[in-house]
């Protein structure tokens, strides 16, 4: 669809953000506010021998200095409770918070940080994933068995959890295959890198605390504060001003409790604003490093008969939300293929790195990059075109997937055809240029979400939602849904959002579910008001309420638009009588059933609700003298069900593609021998810029999907981030004749692969 065909309307928060009139957390100032600073471990693994904050506390202008001794002694984080707010006895990564200071100025807070006596005895560090799972490795959590661990979470040594997906008899099938291909791929860690470093302000009034924070998930933040500071949920209010991006980096509970505890101790409002370095090293959200070994058995006719895999994922020092990652990664290494015999083992491994956590489509860019690169290697081994090989093996409507899920109507085969046709697959290209294909998938997530709606006497509507706007498009799409139900214009609808005291609980901006779950709640709550309007109109128009249509600001009798009454009149009438109010909770979806598979350490990530499918084709030019690869074009086709808001949908794809290019080519964390990040800044951590953007051509395969979101929509926020790196990898390989097996596929790595290959040719 050409951009000129898109409906014309603006984001409700757009003018604020563009003109600077909008307020982000860091822009706020409260009377009497103090400045917070953290004392970080700045060492990867050590036993604390002396932590003395008395000199810091004695500095004039310092109002509070807190350590583990000043907060409830408990471990938190979902599934594996391995974390404390402040380091206790041992520090396990460089960004671990040892102490926190609140002072009258930033300079005095710095002075207090410097005055903290922090002495330690260095412990051996664990950074290599294979060494970490070998016998005799230093343990990051020697007392893991004593922690509270929930769910099916097999753990041992440095393995936080071990998951698998398994179906059929992979070993026997592999033995019967005509050709067996094994590959190893290694992905470096990377970052969400939102442009707004996080900021938090906490203020107490009596026994209630209000926290303004740049989180994607206000309810998770609230629950974290309640858990760690042992407060009831109705005493903690989380408000999120405008967010400057998140990309998953601001999911989860982070530093809200630290700042609330400081504000309580200081008896003043306290504000924290992260530096860029802190944003890189401190949050428990970075994209995990991964080692992927994958083997595929294939017949000469191109049929895949078996796949096995062994994956190691870098959990970092604490588990955050990463416990589902091993199974998610296994699903991506299985891929959206019909594979009857499969066994993929996947282990989440503790190291002394920053903790990993959900960054946009966690595990998918790496898993898809590895398996789609491998897929091209398998196709090459049997001299089959990569497109034909995928045509033969991808899942389609009615097919049984790699864990025994049968798919309803899906559009991956159309995606494959549309994207490859758009890119001109098979056409001759100039020397040094090539196309690469990758297919990807991503689930939709079931979660509870509620919404309130109210229509005022002037016919204007407020939607009160737990949705968050960090690029989700909720400020556009939720209004569209309500406007559609109520026969109004989007400009008649305002959102009240990002405030836990106002809105019913919801997942926030996580897991591509703003539309899927918040959207359904908004649709139902709006429909309740629509039904009330129809009842009122029925009296006015002497018609049956079922025959009333709401459209263009009017309530009219179906088929007789001249018999009508303005909705604003009905609203005015209701304001004097029964108020127009809606409240709804979207029912939690049932997960599809699986047949014939067995999953060890099941983290509910094998059965995929309303799976989204995609095909990306990248056109890449490689400078063989230097190894620099440049992405010239990306052609995408996505099955995300019905597309309600094309503006937001195209925006998600474009952003996802750019993020994918960064991960593929330039974005990777570099660690020193000491386990610390060396490129924790935007000069040396190379994000893509708008000058690097390729042309992006997107088509949607719109299939009404039942048991999904409103109007048959599925999620879309994470899906565009899945297949880009795999497509680029295959294009680079086709352009150069060599495979780069480590991501990011930096210029130097491409050049290394070329020179290694040239040396091998010579010898």
């Amino acid at each position, binding site marked *: 669809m050409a951009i000129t065909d898109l409906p014309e309307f603006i984001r409700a928060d757009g003018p604020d953000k563009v003109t600077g009139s909008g307020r982000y957390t860091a822009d706020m100032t409260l009377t009497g506010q103090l400045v917070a600073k953290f004392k970080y471990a700045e060492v990867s693994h050590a036993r604390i021998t002396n932590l003395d904050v008395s000199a810091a506390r004695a500095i004039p202008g310092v109002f509070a200095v807190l350590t583990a001794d000043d907060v409830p002694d408990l471990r938190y984080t979902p599934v594996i409770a391995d974390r404390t707010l402040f380091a206790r006895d041992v520090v396990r990564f460089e960004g671990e918070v040892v102490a926190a200071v609140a002072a009258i100025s930033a300079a005095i807070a710095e002075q207090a940080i410097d005055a903290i006596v922090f002495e330690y005895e260095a412990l051996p560090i664990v950074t290599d994933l294979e060494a970490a799972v070998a016998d005799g490795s230093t343990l990051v959590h020697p007392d893991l068995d004593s922690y509270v661990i929930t769910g099916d979470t097999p753990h041992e040594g440095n393995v936080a959890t071990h998951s698998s997906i398994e179906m059929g008899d992979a070993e026997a099938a592999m033995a019967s295959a005509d050709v067996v291909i094994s590959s190893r791929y290694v992905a470096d860690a990377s970052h969400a890198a939102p442009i707004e470093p996080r900021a938090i302000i906490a203020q107490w009034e009596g026994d209630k605390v209000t926290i303004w924070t740049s989180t994607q998930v206000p309810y998770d933040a609230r629950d974290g504060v309640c858990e760690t500071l042992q407060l009831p949920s109705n005493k903690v209010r989380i408000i999120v001003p405008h967010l400057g991006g998140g990309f998953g980096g601001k999911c989860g509970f982070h530093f809200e409790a630290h700042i609330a505890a400081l504000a309580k101790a200081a008896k003043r409002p306290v504000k924290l604003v992260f530096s860029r370095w802190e944003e890189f090293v401190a949050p428990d959200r970075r994209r995990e490093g991964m080692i992927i070994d994958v083997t595929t058995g294939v017949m000469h006719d191109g049929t895949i008969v078996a796949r096995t895999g062994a994956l190691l994922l870098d959990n970092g020092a604490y588990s955050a939300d990463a416990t589902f990652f091993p199974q998610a990664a296994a699903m991506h290494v299985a891929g959206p293929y019909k594979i009857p015999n499969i066994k993929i083992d996947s282990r989440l491994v503790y190291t002394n790195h920053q903790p990993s956590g959900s960054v946009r489509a966690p595990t998918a860019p790496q898993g898809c990059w590895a398996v789609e690169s491998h897929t091209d290697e398998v196709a090459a081994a049997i001299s089959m075109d990569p497109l034909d090989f995928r045509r033969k093996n991808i899942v389609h409507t009615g097919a049984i997937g790699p864990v025994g899920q049968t798919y309803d109507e899906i559009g991956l085969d159309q995606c494959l055809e549309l994207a490859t046709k758009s890119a001109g697959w098979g056409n001759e290209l100039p020397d040094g240029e090539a196309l690469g294909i990758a297919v990807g998938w991503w689930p939709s997530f079931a979660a509870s979400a509620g919404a309130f709606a109210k229509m005022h006497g002037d016919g204007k509507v407020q939607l009160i939602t737990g949705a968050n706007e960090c690029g989700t498009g909720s400020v556009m799409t939720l209004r569209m849904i309500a406007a559609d139900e109520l026969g109004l214009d989007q400009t008649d609808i305002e959102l009240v959002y990002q405030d836990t005291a106002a809105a019913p609980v919801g997942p926030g901006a996580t897991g591509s579910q703003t539309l899927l779950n918040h959207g359904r709640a908004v649709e139902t709550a709006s429909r309740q008001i629509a039904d009330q309007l129809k009842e009122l109109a029925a009296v006015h128009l002497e018609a049956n309420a079922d025959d009333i249509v709401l459209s263009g600001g009017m309530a009219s009798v179906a088929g007789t638009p001249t018999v009508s009454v303005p909705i604003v009149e009905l609203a005015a009438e209701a304001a004097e009588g029964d108020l127009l109010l809606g409240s709804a909770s979207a029912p939690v979806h049932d997960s599809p059933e699986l047949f014939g598979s067995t999953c060890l350490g099941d983290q509910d990530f094998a059965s995929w609700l309303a799976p989204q499918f995609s095909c990306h084709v990248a056109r890449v030019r490689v*400078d063989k003298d230097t190894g620099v690869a440049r992405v010239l074009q990306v052609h995408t086709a996505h099955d995300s069900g019905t597309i309600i808001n094309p503006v937001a949908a195209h925006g998600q794809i474009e952003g996802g593609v750019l993020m994918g290019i960064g991960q593929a*080519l330039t974005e990777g964390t570099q660690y020193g021998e000491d386990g610390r990040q060396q490129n924790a800044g935007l000069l040396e951590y190379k994000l893509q810029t708008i000058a690097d953007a390729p042309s992006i051509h997107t088509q949607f395969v719109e299939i009404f999907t039942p048991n999904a979101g409103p109007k048959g929509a599925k999620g879309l926020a994470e899906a565009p981030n899945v297949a880009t790196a795999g497509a680029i990898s295959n294009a680079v390989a086709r352009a150069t004749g060599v495979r780069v097996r480590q991501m990011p596929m930096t210029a130097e790595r491409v*050049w290394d692969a070329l020179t290694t290959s040239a040396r091998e040719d010579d010898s």
Partner: protein
Amino acid sequence: MTFTIANTLADVLVALAAGARPIAGGTDLVVGARQGKDSLPETLIAIDRVGELRTIEAADDHTRIGSGVTHSMLVSDPLIVEQFTAIADAAALVGSPATRNVGTIGGNVMNGSPAMDTGAPLVVLGAEAELSTTAGSRRVSLDELWVSPGRTSAQTDELCTALVLPNPPDGAGSAYVRLEYRRAMEIAVVGAAAAVTLDGDVITAVRIALTAVAPTILELADLSGLSGRAVDESFFAAVASAASEQAAPISDLRASDRYRRHTIGVMARRATEAAVRRAQGEVIDVPVNRALGVGAAS
């Protein structure tokens, strides 16, 4: 801290004599201070509104580029683009549009970074720095000026007031090419500038300088053997190997020494090829990085 905005050069030089430090675009000074590299000086004299420093003046035998000329001005100045093209190539690559609008060539030169993009072009075009105090001015070669990373031989009361370049002879052409991993907000991994003069197909003069492969901008030595040679494949191959051999690169987050040593040869060759084509009268748009090939990515 005091911050004074000067209107005339005389005011600036008096302030420097009294111990103030100059600030123009602040793209190195302020960013460095915010990153904790060096704190801001106690007394700053802003020189960005001094008109005398913001002119490009052509004389019969030389051209004088005021130190306050911004990168944006260099890229859009017809004289620079036509006669001193390598400088325009380099200026067009610096930072972002915002950086180029405030960052100045004088600031670039006096910051003394071995990764500065305008440094190698100035060297191959034979620029001298004009350093001024209340007592008068002197000219120093850039080789003499740059001592080590971030250090120059200028005295604290001296202001770089201009870069003075001999006007190139007929048949001359120049170019600057750098290796970059992205197309904006980038810093040179390695870079090379070349200036050549041709008499027909014969090279009569060639100078080549390298970015980010030594503690300061490195001019290739012993190129006299290349003068008098015809423009052919062996000439370009000799340029590439001279660059790779004479470079003394380090390994850091951006690249290994090995990769730098290889790619500096590629960049030197490409810069020289572009300079030769320009000397032959071909118009290659500024910057060469965008006009040609991927490694200096199009």
